[in-house]
């Protein structure tokens, strides 16, 4: 069994290496007429960019993606520099007409994104020509290897039960060097994905056939990400099923997040796209879905006929009615650990790291400041955007609409949710984003704390203060602090993952939805002691 695990690990690492290695393969070039076609398609009017792009992309040389990217970016830069210089010159000459004319030639957009678009067309090589085979060598080996590594646990872990043996003895799960390597890989992955997508254009070729099958179009970097996300969740869910097989709550919950990720976040949007409708994730609620009210989305929805209007109305109902009502009945968990994609990844890929959340009081204070600030930030951004959308203004309350959207997308959308939120799993735990950053979680949390039937009931006086619950609470809640006082846990940040209850060796904790009255029950003398004393002290 151990041997199978080791073989699995080797196969997995081989798959991962090939996957990573493909980045460096292939050659990138276009013919002059292909570049012309691209320029036509993009509607560039400038002659300079035409010249520059042909020089950069229609090269005889065998360019790898990095050279190709830097040449293309330089081409855009050169073109823009040229017109900037003209603008400056006409400005100095006070030739306003001429100056104004130049703006149409300027090309906006992130350099790597522009380069990605061209690279997608320019790539050639073994990977692209043999996408199917490379799917097997990358995804295939990764999946097979990971499963071989995971499945033997069914036997190796012994009889069903909580098996956290060795978590703090192993490098991978105890912030050792393996954990740091994983962190570096994940962070690099997100940086490249968000900011240098052209570098990984080879990955998109591997998934082109699947993308074409699903939605008729070629794969983008986001398709790669979505597909990878699903694959990782499925494989790591197998691990969850084995590890927590004695705990039905975990089994059902894992199935639920898998379902919502695969069907709602992945398949439905792809199918919608193939039907020409805007691809929409019906479970992704604002303000987690922070660009729901951005102009481009509103425009696209309002131009998509009935389905667009439906999405618009649904999005609002989801946030304003469904979310709070469900939280009232079931707690925030219905979303955070049953439906949400971020939660889904945290509960599958992130499960081995859940113990790293910071339980200190300081961390709790930081959490409340941060998460509510992000909520306010997202709301201000949305108000500004909407005002500007309907009034046609550039800014509102002195805040420039484009600026605040860009800032939010960059800081919160990319860095916080992606690079830090997932990249830092191995060191800071699997719910950094959900705990400190997610504006939707902040909103759900407020409802959960003040108006909900959900609580974690503490079982009378049974707690032995062992600390398993606190250690494995991914949200950094010091569960024991409540349990050892016989007090129910009612906390805005609790995502109801149910792990505290699962790992408690004394059966102290139960997630339940019950009457609101008596939900919060501070106690000093615990059940089991003198009843008169309990009355005397607890009712003071």
């Amino acid at each position, binding site marked *: 069994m151990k041997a199978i695990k080791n073989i699995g690990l080797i196969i997995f690492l081989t798959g991962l290496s090939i996957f990573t290695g493909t980045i460096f393969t292939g050659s990138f070039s276009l013919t002059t007429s292909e570049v012309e076609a691209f320029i036509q398609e993009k509607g560039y009017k400038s002659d300079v960019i035409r010249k520059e792009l042909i020089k950069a992309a229609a090269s005889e040389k065998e360019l790898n993606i990095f050279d190709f990217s830097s040449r293309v970016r330089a081409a855009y830069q050169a073109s823009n520099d040229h017109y900037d210089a003209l603008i400056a010159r006409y400005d100095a000459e006070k030739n306003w007409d001429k100056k104004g004319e130049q703006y149409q030639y300027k090309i906006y957009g992130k350099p790597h994104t522009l380069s990605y678009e061209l690279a997608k067309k320019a790539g050639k090589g073994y990977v692209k020509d043999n996408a199917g085979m490379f799917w097997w060598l990358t995804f295939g080996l990764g999946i097979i290897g990971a499963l071989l590594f995971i499945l033997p646990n069914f036997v190796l872990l012994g*009889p069903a039960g909580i098996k956290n043996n060795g978590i703090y003895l192993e490098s991978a799960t105890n912030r050792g060097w393996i954990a740091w390597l994983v962190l570096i890989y994940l962070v690099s992955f997100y940086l490249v994905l968000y900011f240098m997508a052209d570098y990984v254009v080879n990955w998109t070729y591997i998934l082109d056939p699947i993308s074409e099958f699903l939605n008729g179009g070629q794969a983008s970097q986001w398709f790669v990400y979505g597909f990878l996300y699903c694959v990782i969740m499925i494989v790591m869910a197998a691990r969850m099923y084995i590890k927590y097989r004695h705990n039905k*709550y975990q089994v059902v919950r894992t199935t639920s997040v898998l379902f919502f990720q695969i069907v709602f976040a992945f398949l439905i949007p792809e199918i919608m796209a193939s039907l020409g409708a805007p691809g929409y994730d019906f479970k992704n609620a604002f303000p987690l879905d922070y660009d729901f009210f951005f102009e481009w989305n509103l425009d696209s929805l309002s131009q998509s006929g009935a389905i667009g209007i439906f999405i618009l109305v649904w999005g609002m109902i989801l946030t304003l009615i469904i979310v709070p009502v469900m939280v009232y009945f079931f707690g925030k968990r219905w979303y955070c650990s049953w439906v949400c994609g971020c939660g889904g990844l945290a509960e599958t890929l992130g499960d081995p790291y859940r113990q790293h959340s910071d339980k200190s009081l300081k961390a709790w204070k930081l959490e409340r400041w941060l998460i509510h600030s992000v909520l306010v930030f997202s709301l201000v951004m949305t108000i500004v955007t909407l005002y500007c959308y309907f009034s046609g203004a550039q800014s509102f309350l002195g805040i420039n609409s484009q600026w605040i959207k860009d800032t939010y997308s960059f800081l919160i959308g990319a860095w916080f949710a992606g690079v830090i939120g997932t990249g830092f799993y191995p060191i800071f735990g699997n719910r950094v984003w959900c705990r400190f950053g997610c504006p939707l979680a902040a909103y759900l949390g407020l409802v959960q704390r003040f108006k909900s039937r959900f609580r974690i009931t503490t079982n009378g006086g*049974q707690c032995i203060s062992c600390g398993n619950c606190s250690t494995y609470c991914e949200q950094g809640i010091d569960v*024991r602090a409540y349990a*050892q006082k016989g007090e129910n846990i009612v906390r805005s940040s609790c995502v109801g993952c149910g792990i505290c209850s699962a790992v408690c060796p004394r*059966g102290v904790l139960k997630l339940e939805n019950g009457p609101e009255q008596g939900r919060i029950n501070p106690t*000093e003398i615990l059940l089991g002691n003198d009843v008169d004393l309990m009355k005397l002290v607890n009712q003071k």
Partner: protein
Amino acid sequence: MEHIVIIGNGISGVTLARHIRKNSDKEITIVSAETDYFFSRTALMYVYMGHMKFEHTQPYESWFWKKNRINLKKGYVQQVDPKKKQLVFSNNETLSYDKLVLATGSKPNKFGWPGQDLKGVMGLYHKQDLENLEKHAPNNKVCKRAVIVGGGLIGIELAEMLHSRNIPVTFLVRETSFWNGVLPAGESEMINEHIKENHIDLRLSTNLKEIVSDENGRVKSVIIEETGEEIPCDVVGLTAGVSPNIDFIKNSETSAEPSRSIETNRGILVNRFLETNIKDVYAIGDCAEQREAIGNRRPIEAVWYTGRMMGETLAQTLCGNRVEYKPGHWFNSAKFIDIEYQTYGWVFSERSKKDTELHFHWRHPKENICITVAYDKDTNKFLGINTFGIRMRHKIFDRWLTEERDVNHVMEYLADANFDPEFYRAYEKEIITKFNQENNTNIQPRKKSWKRIFAKA
């Protein structure tokens, strides 16, 4: 300001200190020789097993003590001088008190076995034992086999710990079945099976004769009393119970003035107010022995919960509201490797139960799940329940015990008491069907009702 000194930073001493602080401004000092900060002894096993780090076993962050003005003093108290109201430490330092609380806990029993002090022989009680274990049994290369002597709760924990690092374990149990002095036969049998299912070499009705040393004063093997068999091993765990850790009190006794010494038996003798024979000296937790047992309870109750309850109670007395220690209904819990155990009220084993105590037992045909309900033969009064693999709601059983419900009531409303996580399979139907068959009753299970659960008693 009155200075209250507590010897022992375990659950009883710390609970006491916290509650004194809530109710007063008195100066509080907690003394311990073991660790700087309070930690949860019950979690020691999880540190060795890698579920937690030692710091996770500490329920309070280190700023807590300063914020609550609880002085912590590390040192070993060698002598108590009640006349001068002063403690003497092993380094001859002294500390004066106005009131003294002894909360010194227990120490592992050693029954004078030959070789019991060899290197590699250890109990499992203090943090130092854990460090010792880490030294002698870091993995199965250094420790090729461990032998555990004594089949109680700590013994099975130690077995589970060693097993988690794939160290082969031989488990010597004096009784004919695991913990059958406490558990009824059916349950005890299920645990036997579960121990073996985990590949632990369980030897029932087996006593230790001696521990054999190698040339370096280290354990080499153990010899079995009954068969003379020699089992080679590198570690011997002695887990044959604990007794009050009060040698230093006994050493403090002055034969000249016996009336001035703190009176002890196995533990420190206290009355129902947790007062010793000496004014201003109290004892709580594992080290305290009731002069007269309370109800069915033993005079010394070495469990977490009672230590805590004594702390809660004594704090009242020390803050001017003198109250008797009056624990409510008995409850307890433990975990036997993967099987959780809870008990409410009294269920005695065949070895100790009265003839009027009847048992109803149900066991799942395949899984490690069972319950035993004890009730009175004549009145049908519900006496207690043991559950294995099913969690129960403390509050409900506590209420039923107070209301002196009969066993039929308990059966009928069993669903109210279930505390398993959501989506778990419930077994009330099977349980009640069996009960009906055995007792010719026709009890219909009721659905769980929040209204009843939250009803004020």
